[in-house]
C-alpha cells in the first residue's frame, strides 16, 4: 500500500516538474520583467525618490498628495475622454470593415492586408505622419478642407482639438486589429442561421442586429476589454504627437507618469500614479467580466 502511495506521489511530482518546464519560458520573463518591477514600483511609490539620491520612505504621502492634486483628476479625465472617443470609433469602424471584407468582394485578401498594415507599423512613425497630415496650415487634411470651403481647426496646436487629433490617429491605426478579431468572429457564425433568418423574412439590418451582433458578442467582448486596457495605457501617440500639450490639454495618465519620472525627478509620485492606474484598470476589467454574463452570448 505504501509503495503505491509513494509511486503516485512520484508521478505527481514528475507531472508538476514537466508542467513547470513548459511554463518556464514565459514564467521567468513574467517574474523578472512584470511581477518583479510591479513589486519594486509598489516600494518606490512609498518613497520620495528623484532617481539620483537614495530613496526616503514617506509612507502613503505620495498617494495622499496625488489625490489632492488637481492634475491627477485632469489626467484621468483626459484619458477617459480619449477612451470615450476612441472606443466607439474603432469598434464601429472595425465592424464596418469586417462586414465589408467578409463578403465575396474582389481583392479582399489584399484589402485585409492593407487595413492591417497600420497595426504593425511603429507608433512613432504613424504619429509623425499624422502630425504632418494634421499640420494646421500646410497639412493635407486642412488643405483639402480648404478646397470645400471649410477652415480647418488647429488640430494638435489647439487645446480643444489636440485630443480629437490623437483619437483620430489612434482609431485609424487600430482599425485593422479590431477588423481581424471581428472577421474571425463573423466567420464562426454558421451560415444556416442567416438562411433561417432570411426564410423568416429578416432584412439586412434585422439580420445584423438579431443574428450577427448577438453571435459576435464574444469577439466584441474581447475587443472591448483589450481596447479599454490599451486605452487607459495610451502613451506613444500622445508623446509623439502633442507631448501632452498644448499646455497639458492632452496630458494622459501614462504621459504624466513618464513626465514625473524622467522630467521632474519624482519617481515616487510616478510609481504611486502607476499603481492607481493599475487598480482602476483592474476594477474596470473585473466589472466587465462580471457584466458580460448579461450580454455575451456563447451560443
Amino acid at each position, binding site marked *: 500500500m505504501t509503495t503505491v502511495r509513494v509511486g503516485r506521489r512520484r508521478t505527481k*511530482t514528475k507531472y*508538476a*516538474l514537466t*508542467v*513547470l518546464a513548459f511554463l*518556464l519560458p514565459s*514564467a*521567468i520573463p513574467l*517574474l*523578472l520583467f512584470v511581477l*518583479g518591477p510591479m513589486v519594486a514600483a509598489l516600494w518606490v511609490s512609498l518613497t520620495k525618490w*528623484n*532617481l*539620483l*539620491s537614495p530613496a526616503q520612505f514617506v509612507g502613503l504621502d505620495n498617494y495622499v498628495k496625488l489625490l489632492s492634486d488637481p492634475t491627477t483628476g485632469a489626467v484621468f479625465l483626459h484619458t477617459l475622454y480619449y477612451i470615450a472617443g476612441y472606443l466607439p470609433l474603432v469598434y464601429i469602424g472595425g465592424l464596418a470593415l469586417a462586414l465589408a471584407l467578409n463578403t465575396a468582394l474582389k481583392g479582399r485578401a489584399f484589402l485585409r492586408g492593407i487595413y492591417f498594415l497600420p497595426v504593425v507599423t511603429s507608433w512613432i512613425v504613424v504619429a509623425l505622419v499624422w502630425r504632418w497630415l494634421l*499640420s*494646421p*496650415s*500646410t497639412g493635407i487634411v486642412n488643405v483639402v478642407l480648404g478646397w470645400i470651403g471649410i477652415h480647418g481647426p*488647429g488640430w494638435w*496646436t*489647439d*487645446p480643444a482639438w489636440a485630443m480629437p487629433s490623437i483619437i483620430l490617429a489612434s482609431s485609424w491605426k487600430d482599425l485593422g486589429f479590431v477588423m481581424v478579431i471581428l472577421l474571425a468572429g463573423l466567420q464562426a457564425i454558421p451560415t444556416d442561421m442567416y438562411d433561417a433568418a432570411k426564410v423568416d423574412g429578416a432584412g439586412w439590418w434585422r439580420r445584423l442586429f438579431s443574428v450577427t451582433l448577438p453571435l459576435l458578442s464574444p469577439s466584441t467582448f474581447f475587443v472591448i476589454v483589450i481596447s479599454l486596457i490599451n486605452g487607459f495605457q495610451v502613451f506613444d501617440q500622445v508623446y509623439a504627437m502633442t507631448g501632452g*500639450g*498644448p*499646455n*497639458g490639454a492632452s496630458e494622459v495618465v501614462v504621459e504624466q507618469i513618464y513626465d514625473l519620472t*524622467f*522630467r*521632474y*525627478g519624482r*519617481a515616487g509620485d510616478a510609481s504611486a500614479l502607476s499603481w492607481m492606474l493599475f487598480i482602476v484598470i483592474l476594477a474596470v476589467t473585473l466589472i466587465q467580466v462580471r457584466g458580460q454574463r448579461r450580454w455575451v452570448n456563447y451560443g
Partner: protein
Amino acid sequence: MNRKILAAIGVVGVAALAMTGCASNSGSTSGKVTITYSNFISNGGNEANLAKIVTAFEKANPNITVKVKTLPYASYDEAQQTDLAAGTSADVFDIDGASNYGVYEENGVLAPLTSVPSSLYNKALLDTYATGGKQYGLPTSFSDVVLFYNKDLFDKAGVSYPTSSWTWKDETAAALKLTDQAAGVWGDHQPVTYNEFYKTLVQNGASFLNKAGTKVAFNTPAGLAAAKWLVDKSGTTMPTIADGQGTADFDTNLFKAGKLAMLHTGIWEFGAFADTPANWDIAEEPGSTQHANAVFSNGIGVSATSKNKDAAEKWAIYMSSSTEMVNVRLDSGWELPTISDTKKLNTYLDKGKPTHRQVVFDAAKTIAPAPSIGDNQSAMQDDITNELIEAQAGRETVQQALDNAEQKINALLKQ
C-alpha cells in the same frame, strides 16, 4: 511545491542578473584600465572629431582605453539619470549645462576632481562647475545665442544691417520693413520659451527670480514688456503657431530657405548654415535697457561610483583642456573650447562664414544668469513656456499668462 521551485528559480535568475550587472564595471589588474565615456556632444556630426581626441589621449596614456557611448541630445538626460539610478553609469559623462550640474552635484553623483590645472580654463566658466571650493565638473565647451541675419533680404528691403548699438525698437522697425507675407518672407524669429524669456527679462532690466531665489520677480511692468517682446512678434513679423512656428527645425529651415531675415539662435548652427546660398552674418542680440546674452556651456564629470577615478579624471581633464582637443574643435568648428588662453582661439575668427565671429566672444561678456532651482527646474521651465505659448496663441492675455505662471512657479519654490 511548485511555488517553492518557481521562487527558487526566480531568486537564481535575479541573482544572475545582478552579477552580470556588477561584472561589467571591474577594472583589470594588469595596470591597463578601460574607462567608459557617455556623451551627447559629438552626436549629429562630430563623432569622428571625438574619435580623434580619444585616439590622441590613448596615445599619450597607453595604459588607458576610452570606450565611447554616444547618445542623441534629446534623450541623453533621461538615459544618464536612469544609468545613475541603476548604478550603471559610465565613468565619465557629459553634463548638460550649469543647471544640470547643480542637480547632479546636489545629489552626490559626481566625484570631486583633485588635480585640475585650473589656470588652463576660463575662470568664469570653470567656477560654474565648482561647489564649496571643490571642482565637481569641468566645462568642455561654450556657446551663445546671437542674432543671425540674411544680408540679401536686408539689401533687398534697403534696411541697414544690425549693429551692437541696436535696441528692441530698431529690431522691430527693421523686422516690419523686412516682412513680406505675400512672398512668404518673415522679418524675425525668436522662440517663445523659457530660455529666451529669462534672458529678455535681463535685457529689460528685470529678472526671473528675486535675489534670494524664493519667489518669481517677472510679474512687473518691465517683465510684462519683456514677455510682450517675445509674444507679440507672432503673426506680425514672425510666423504663428498655426503656420508651424515652434516645431522642430521650422526656424532654421526657414532661414536656410532664404525666407527669414533675422533669427535668434545659437552659434551651434554655424555648421548647418555653412552651405546655404544666402549671404548671412551675425550680430549681438539687441537689448532694451542693456545687453544680456544666453551663454550655455557643456560640462563633463566623473561618476562618484567609478572604479577608476584617476584614469577617469585624466580623461575629463584632457577632454576639456588639452591642446589636441582645442585643435580638433577649432579645425572643425565644433563649438568653442573653454580655455583661458584666448590667443589659441584666434584662428577661430577667420574660419569663414560668418564674418563677424568676434560677436561670439563679445556676447559672452554680458551674461544673463540662468535661474537654477534644483529638482523642480524642468517643471518651472515647462510652466513658463506653456503660459507664454498660451498668450502667443491668443488664448490668454500676456498679463494673464504671467499671473498664472507666477502662481504655479511660486508654488514650486515653496516645496
